[in-house]
């Protein structure tokens, strides 16, 4: 923070984006600041505090669940809408992050904008087919969550654009979901692995399956072979075997591969 020359506290999205794009300021957006307040890049000269920007609401829009990027972990944990969505995995994940004091400060937008292997929401959002709305120099842009970190996006959220909303599609509302964080203690920020399993069942058949894995790399990834195996109805053991192979290929190590595939087997059996 030693290079900071300005403190800006805009009250609208438009104003915030204008400040980000103004070359004079070399600004970076910060919400809760828990991830980056102590580790701001040296090139940043303006601390752009977005706490007054009205992007905190959690609401239903067109059937989709829309979470404002400024919503804190605590607000997501306590939100009735989030608790009632996809077996409550969003609230459950928020509650499993670090401590109450961190949950009071940290926001979902910050957690998503700054890729880090231990961030809890990216794996959840990947497993729920989420979309992200960004305010950019040329207006709003809606991107698939899985494309947020790709170089093809051409944007650096928080530096030249602002994440304003996270959209969870209506189709996932009734999905059977499980979020698991394997860590030394419940409140540890560091995790050995984070997992989001989700499935949609119509009648006796599974129609959708997502297996998302976090904490192994800065960006979470999906396990397509495990998803295919479960959809094909090959049985929980075979699907878990496919998942273990994918984890080994991702260099998860024996403990993580073994623990995660066992947990997946349990989930697969529960939905199969």
């Amino acid at each position: 923070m030693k290079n900071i020359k300005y403190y800006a506290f805009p009250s609208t999205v438009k104003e915030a984006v204008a400040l980000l794009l103004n070359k004079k300021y070399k600004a970076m957006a910060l919400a809760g600041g828990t991830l980056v307040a102590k580790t701001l890049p040296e090139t940043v000269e303006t601390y752009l505090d977005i706490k007054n920007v009205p992007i905190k609401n959690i609401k239903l829009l067109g059937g989709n669940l829309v979470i404002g990027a400024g919503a804190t972990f605590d607000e997501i944990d306590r939100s009735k809408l989030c608790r009632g969505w996809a077996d409550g995995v969003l609230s459950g994940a928020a509650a499993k992050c670090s401590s109450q004091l961190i949950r009071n400060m940290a926001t979902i937008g910050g957690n998503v904008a700054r890729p880090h292997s231990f961030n809890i929401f990216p794996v959840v959002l990947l497993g729920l087919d989420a979309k992200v709305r960004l305010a950019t120099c040329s207006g709003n842009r809606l991107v698939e969550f899985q494309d947020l970190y790709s170089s093809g996006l051409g944007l650096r959220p928080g530096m030249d654009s602002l994440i304003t909303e996270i959209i969870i599609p209506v189709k996932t509302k009734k999905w059977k979901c499980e979020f698991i964080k394997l860590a030394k203690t419940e409140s540890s920020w560091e995790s050995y692995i984070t997992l989001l399993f989700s499935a949609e069942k119509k009648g006796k058949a599974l129609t959708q399956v997502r297996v998302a894995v976090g904490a192994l790399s800065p960006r979470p990834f999906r396990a397509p072979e495990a998803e295919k195996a479960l959809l094909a109805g090959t049985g929980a053991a075979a699907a878990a075997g496919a998942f273990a192979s994918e984890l080994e290929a991702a260099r998860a190590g024996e403990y993580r591969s073994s623990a995660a595939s066992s947990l997946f087997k349990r989930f697969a059996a529960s939905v199969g």
Partner: protein
Amino acid sequence: MKKSIIEMHKGIFEITVTVNGEKKELAVKNGEFLLDALRRYGWKGIKKGCDTGDCGSCAVILNGRPVLGCLAPAVTAHNGEITTIEGLGTVHAPHALQEAFVEAGAVQCGFCIPGMILSSRHLLDRTPDPTEAEIRKALDGNLCRCTGYVKQVEAVKNAAKKLAGTKK
């Protein structure tokens, strides 16, 4: 139009904050965190423990919710309202939580207590009759190395009862 940007001069940001109900002009250093700024100005109830956001000793209530003073850049408190432990009660007129902590024997070395009481106060403000699980969750960011948290949980329960009684 309301001014929404302040510039640093000679390494200092001039900010306006309300601390324990009193409006103050503070000169905070560039890169300074709320914990250090408040202590420098005399609010010593905020404690410096880990300085990495893990122990909760530096908790203060900023704009209605407890935050970690060691992770909140001081400048971000501009135009904000802060409550430190000094704003809760005094030796002669303690807050119900302060009384309850002493009566329950929840205070040993005392270093973690300001943060713990502020977290408890926020809990009771929004959940006047909390369950044990809710108390433990609200205090999960306030580490105590002296006790096993049993007495603090008891103290919060007792304070909740006392506060409920005074409201009747």
